[in-house]
């Protein structure tokens, strides 16, 4: 949709120039399809959570209509990693590039800025990350629960792997009733 489209390498360079050492790691994954081997690209970029929002905003400079698909997230022990899946340049054949931004948040203070002011469609994803991983999305317009019911215990986060995880609540039916 943008007039001039960047190549995957140029996109990575664009972010590196802009955010310097805040880009911690990047990887360009190229794959092919079919007999004609048409190529497509997935870009993976690990960045500092402090510049995350600015980087998301920069995406809209590349393509005004950057699409936000969803955010994934997982517990890495000391950190919680969030992976935001974007795509740019849709609307022309084989031109779309997927971008996956990974931000690591320390468990002691798992806070990240909301991107709903840039991508209003991101709200359900952000609410889900809050309730599933116990991260705090700063500035989220509606921080109520979305998938978990209101009577689910507070301070239990289903995707955590530590003591705040769901382990105590699991009932393995195949092991029979213990009580």
């Amino acid at each position, binding site marked *: 949709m943008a007039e001039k489209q960047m190549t995957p390498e140029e996109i990575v360079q664009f972010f590196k120039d802009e955010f310097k050492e805040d880009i911690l790691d990047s990887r360009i*994954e190229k*794959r*092919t*399809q*079919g*007999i*004609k*081997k*048409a190529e*497509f690209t*997935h870009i*993976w970029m690990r960045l500092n959570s402090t510049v995350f929002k600015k980087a998301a905003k920069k995406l809209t400079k590349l393509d005004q*209509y950057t*699409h*936000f*698909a*969803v955010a*994934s*997230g*997982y517990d890495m022990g000391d950190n919680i990693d969030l*992976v935001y*899946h974007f*795509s740019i*340049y*849709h*609307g*022309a*054949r*084989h*031109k*779309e*590039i*997927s971008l*996956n931004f990974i931000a690591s948040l320390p468990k002691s203070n798992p806070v990240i800025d909301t991107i709903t002011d840039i*991508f*209003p*469609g*991101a*709200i*359900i994803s952000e609410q889900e990350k809050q309730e599933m991983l116990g991260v705090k999305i700063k500035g989220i317009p509606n921080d109520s*629960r*979305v*998938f*978990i*019911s209101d009577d689910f215990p507070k301070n239990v986060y*289903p*995707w955590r792997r530590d003591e705040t995880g*769901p382990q105590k609540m699991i009932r393995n039916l195949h092991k029979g009733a213990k009580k």
Partner: protein
Amino acid sequence: MKRQSTKTTYQLPIGPIHPALKEPVMFEFEIDGEKIIDANVRLGHVHRGIEWAGTQRNPIQILYLAERICGICSYCHPMAFALAVERVANIEVPERAQYLRVIQGELERICSHILWAGVAAHEIGFDSVLYLTWQMREEALDLTEYLTGNRITKGITMIGGIRRDITTDMHPKIKETLGYFKDNFEKLHHIFLDDKTFKLRSQNCGVLAKEDALKLCAVGPTARASGVKKDVRLDQGYFAYGDLDFDYVTPDVLTGEVHGDVYDRIIVRLLEVKQSIDLIEQCIQHMPEGPIVAEPKIAKLLATLKKANGEGIGRMEAPRGEVIHYVKLTGQDAPYHWKVRAPTYNNILPWIPMLKGQQIADIPIVAASTDPCMSCTNRVAVVHKNERHMLDKEMLHRMSVEKTRRLMK
């Protein structure tokens, strides 16, 4: 129901159980007379923790779990998962398997869109059309059964390929069924797009502006009907779509205009059925020879997957829009993380602009027009002056049918 009722408006909670939805979801409407002023959506009534369950299983077991995420997209979810895993483990899928994957994907699209057409007709009171479309769907299901051995939960996905081949002796049956669809396509086209009452109920109803579709990250036919050219099959491609000749389906292809209303969403889905028939024919014509899986020995495949380390995404254009799966493997039996994003996840928010300004009788058809993938039961509660009245499925359906009858006069 936190808001207080005012003198002029009242609240209408719809759901968690509702006739237009195949699965529970909760709407809170602010109503003035018959008109919807505001809408709010609540989800999660059928959250089953499948993603968490996936982290307790190995990738091949997950294929069968992923199949049970959705009854209609029972092919897209395991396939998107397989795509993600193949990318992490660097598994090259044989070319023949890529073509076979397209055929099954497009057949699922035909089943889904025709099923949807029937539901849409039912919502506005055309039950004879429901019978007609579901009779057609039966043919598609018969073909699915012939090709996969199953009608709904197909069980044909395998990491690195597909589990069943399509041999030349199967071609006549495929041609026969596709021929049946082509013969009946004009009939469907005429019923849905030329009928005066259909037009009255669907044109300028549930409008989603292009800008809103883009901002709210809408996907699939919902986005395309608003003029957004977005289709993973074309934008990026996967399987063998890169080899095939087809183009974006937006309503202007047929009418030269985009309105983003329910009528446009009908156009897009109908034209996509035609496109799917064409894609299946192209695949059968150009299908290369070769194996259908990269690694036929499951134990060996599992050993390879156990060594894999990294993360990947699988994106697929399901009938309702983009399905995206994220998988992180860390050299264990089970994936470290698995995230599933079904298209309805993104098509929920666009409901709000679609429903604002519509009448209560339009709720079923507008909600159904995005083809939400959530199950169906039947009651609606109306809270009016702090009194609760129940509107059951029949009542709400009758209101919708009555509106159609009024328009026909």
